[in-house]
């Protein structure tokens, strides 16, 4: 019997938490070299706390992955007196800011684990994670995210955003519709950089055994959402406003797929008893719109998307043959042969593709990471189609198209179930 084991919490962090004591609100900031943006974000957090939660005991917990630009010092050094002077607000209480450098390389999962541990030790009632890149954060985000937790007893509050119709395509074309179809809740942003959760959800999630399995480091945000759903916690959404646009590069897609799709696929096995019983999706309570679409012009290299799709289909034949059904792969090859003006990756084919990938992931027909990587070119083909089909669409048309895709995911869910049992 092991009587003692190493704690992942650093002694110095623990000492800081002892000094903080019990809190009502915990704001988590996972950082790594965010000096450029972090100052105003912390100001906005302090402003939001002073404005909407002046009586609550609050702490900002910074879990840092080894910044070399002074990010942690900026977090803990921001004086609430600056906020008071600028906003003419009065602070009843001391607002603590504590910081810890967690071991290992920067990983959102490890950061999150430190934040969850702090939430449990401090008996935090309501917690919120804020992205250090959300430069257009407004103080009111604190109220929109924490209010439903502290006032209305919800356990998870996910954001909805006002964003360009061509942003967040991985979410709108895969993660959202698949999560919705399988888990039964229409959570528009199941993987988001800011979200709020209750202390009880934090404790339950912290206690789940996945932290030591290697997978605990990746996609923890989505994993928390799924845990809330499967644990039958109360979930709602809150419209925050415009999402900060973050430049993404082609090389970012695979890591993004790992965090989102990889996490989703890897959860399906353990969560099978839950999602297999879901027959329809339902709305979650939402403050504000589910989403708001911006339409101003945005430059995207559609051509490059299709080229990467074609390259993938031609170079990964053996990989796709081990993942996909013969009919699905044949259809992929057929559309790959179409001229650009005729090329379409239709919704039904896309859904079948994703479901077959999920089933293959479950059986580990090849290395699971290779399965995820192989999805990248196919996703780009789907993106190309989405761009073409919505290039002149109005906001409501875009929403309708996304809704149609969601319904397709729901309609074909029996197909996934059939493959699941067949593979078994």
């Amino acid at each position, binding site marked *: 019997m092991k009587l003692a084991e190493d704690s992942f919490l650093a002694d110095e962090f623990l000492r800081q938490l002892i000094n903080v*004591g019990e809190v009502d609100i915990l704001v988590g900031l996972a950082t790594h070299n965010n000096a450029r943006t972090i100052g105003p974000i912390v100001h906005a957090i302090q402003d939001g706390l002073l404005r909407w939660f002046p009586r609550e005991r609050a702490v900002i917990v910074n879990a840092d992955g080894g910044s070399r630009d002074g990010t942690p010092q900026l977090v803990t050094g921001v004086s609430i007196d600056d906020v008071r002077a600028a906003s003419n607000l*009065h602070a009843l*209480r001391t607002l603590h800011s504590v910081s810890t450098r967690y071991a290992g390389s920067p990983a959102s999962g490890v950061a999150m684990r430190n934040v969850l541990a702090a939430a449990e030790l401090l008996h935090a009632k309501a917690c919120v994670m804020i992205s250090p890149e959300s430069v257009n954060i407004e103080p009111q985000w604190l109220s929109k995210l924490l209010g439903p937790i502290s006032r209305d007893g919800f356990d998870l509050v996910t954001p909805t955003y006002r964003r360009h119709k061509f942003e967040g395509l991985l979410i709108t074309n895969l993660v959202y519709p698949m999560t919705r179809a399988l888990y039964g809740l229409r959570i528009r942003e199941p993987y988001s950089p800011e979200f709020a959760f209750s202390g009880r959800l934090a404790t339950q999630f912290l206690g789940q055994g996945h932290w030591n399995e290697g997978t605990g480091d990746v996609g923890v945000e989505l994993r928390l959402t799924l845990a809330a759903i499967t644990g039958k916690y109360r979930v709602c959404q809150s419209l925050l406003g415009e999402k900060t646009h973050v430049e993404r590069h082609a090389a970012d897609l695979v890591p993004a797929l790992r965090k989102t799709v990889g996490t989703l696929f890897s959860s399906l096995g353990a969560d099978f008893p839950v999602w297999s019983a879901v027959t329809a999706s339902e709305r979650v309570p939402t403050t504000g719109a589910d989403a708001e679409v911006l339409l101003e012009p945005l430059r995207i290299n559609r051509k490059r998307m299709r080229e990467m799709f074609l390259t993938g289909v031609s170079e990964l034949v053996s990989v796709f043959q081990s993942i996909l059904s013969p009919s699905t792969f044949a259809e992929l090859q057929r559309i790959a042969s179409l001229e650009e003006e005729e090329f379409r990756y239709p919704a039904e084919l896309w859904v079948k593709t994703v479901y077959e990938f999920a089933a293959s992931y479950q059986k580990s027909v090849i290395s699971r990471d290779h399965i995820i990587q192989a999805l990248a070119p196919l996703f780009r083909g789907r993106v190309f189609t989405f761009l073409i089909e919505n290039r002149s669409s109005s906001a409501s048309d875009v929403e309708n198209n996304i809704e149609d895709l969601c319904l397709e995911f729901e309609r074909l869910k029996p197909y996934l179930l059939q493959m699941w049992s067949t593979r078994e």
Partner: protein
Amino acid sequence: MPLSKDALWYKDAIIYQVHVRTFHDSNSDGIGDFQGLEEKLDYLSDLGVTAIWLMPFFPSPLRDDGYDIADYNAVHSSYGTLEDFRKLLGSAHDRGIRIIIEMVLNHTSDQHPWFEESRSSQDNARRDWYVWSDTDTRYQGTRIIFLDTEKSNWAWDPISKSFYWHRFFSHQPDLNYDNPAVREQMWDVMKFWLEMGVDGFRLDAVPYLVEREGTSCENLPETHAVLKELRSKLDEQFPGRMLLAEANQWPADLRPYFGDGDEFHMAFHFPLMPRMFMALKLEDRKPITEILQQTPEIPSACQWSLFLRNHDELTLEMVTDLERDYMYDTYAQSKTMRLNLGIRRRLAPLLDNDRRSIELMNGMLMSLPGTPIIYYGDEIGMGDNTNLGDRNGVRTPMQWNGASNGGFSTASPERLYAPLIQDPVYGYPAVNVLSQKTSGHSLLNWMQRLITVRRSTGVFGRGSIEFLHPANHRILAYVRSFDNETVLVVNNLSSTAQAVELDLRRYKGNIPIEMFGRNMFPRVGDVPYLLTMGPYQFYWFRLRRI
């Protein structure tokens, strides 16, 4: 015991605030009197009190508990005679106890002969002794102090058919300090009592003496000029006597009342008091440290006066709206507890009769920089009665024993000036001096020990203060220093046990000696000094280098 000859005696004083009427009735008329108070001087002396602040005892219609004075040179017949007062004064001085009396400079009763003359006609010699106007539009924007009862600072006088100015109740017309005759007269009044031997005055409502158009009519330079004039005469003719200012103002506005050491000797630190209560509920030292950091330096011969409660409502004038709402929500959930901009409750009920937090608050009262004032009855944890009107609920008879009338009076109960507290928790059978004297661990005995320790050193009354800033915000820690003596005070503001690490490197090598038990604690070294503290616990450590 002779009175100390130290000109700065007020810095070391332990002041006890009491109304004669409330303390002890010697002649069975149901009203406390001078003789009754005199009979209880040994009690106060044993407690450790070195000065008594007597609330107004002048002839008065008693529509504001004696703050509406009808004759400045006499005493109300209910309390005895001038001779009785002189006897009380002498007996107190024999025990080394000084007497500070109330002096209401700002206004009189509307039944004072001066006002009766002033209103009788516009040509009367004393017409200009008060502030009259044909309209009620002068001094627009001046705040109303008694918000619950007054709608204006002007009142219509049907006799002289004009308006008169009153910052308090309408039956308390303001004196006109622009009139030299008024200033002269009020000095004569003070001189009357000083010649009798009183040791000082608590000057009531001093910010409001002078009015000027286009101002807040508070804290005006002209008001300070009047006060400096009084102080100058006092120093010249009665050195060693003390003036205590009642000025409910922000620290920056309070500072001028000390002048350059040529105005008041002492002033109540009003803004600190509600913040002590706030800090306790918040379990956060921030309200206390902030207000003290905003408190300006005062002349070396001057002194702040600290208190937890008094005869008035716990005032929430000098706090922000956010703070006021918080105080109401946490200390006065029932609206009957609220009056004007304050809370009319005694100390023990405010703290839910929690002995530990009562001790902590008194510990801070005795260790923060200033002279402490104990409100009568709070040393035994008396309760209140919010069903009595105005602020009368905190002015009930002193509870001496569990017998009839709580030992306050042998009169028939219905003759008492006010009913005794009788509920099962705070009622006189449960809370009284006799039972607490016979109980070794009573609040009374604890207060006596607290005062004894406080008086064992001059550091609390005369020392500097330096705040420590431990990361645990629930701990209020500071160092008091005077001459060669250093005392470390550590207060746990939390209802739960706390650990705190104090940076005491400056005091490396010192041995902390806990002042109540006189036990040594580990020597201070290089590493942060760790203390673990129980709920609401506090420590006073004398730091000794041996």
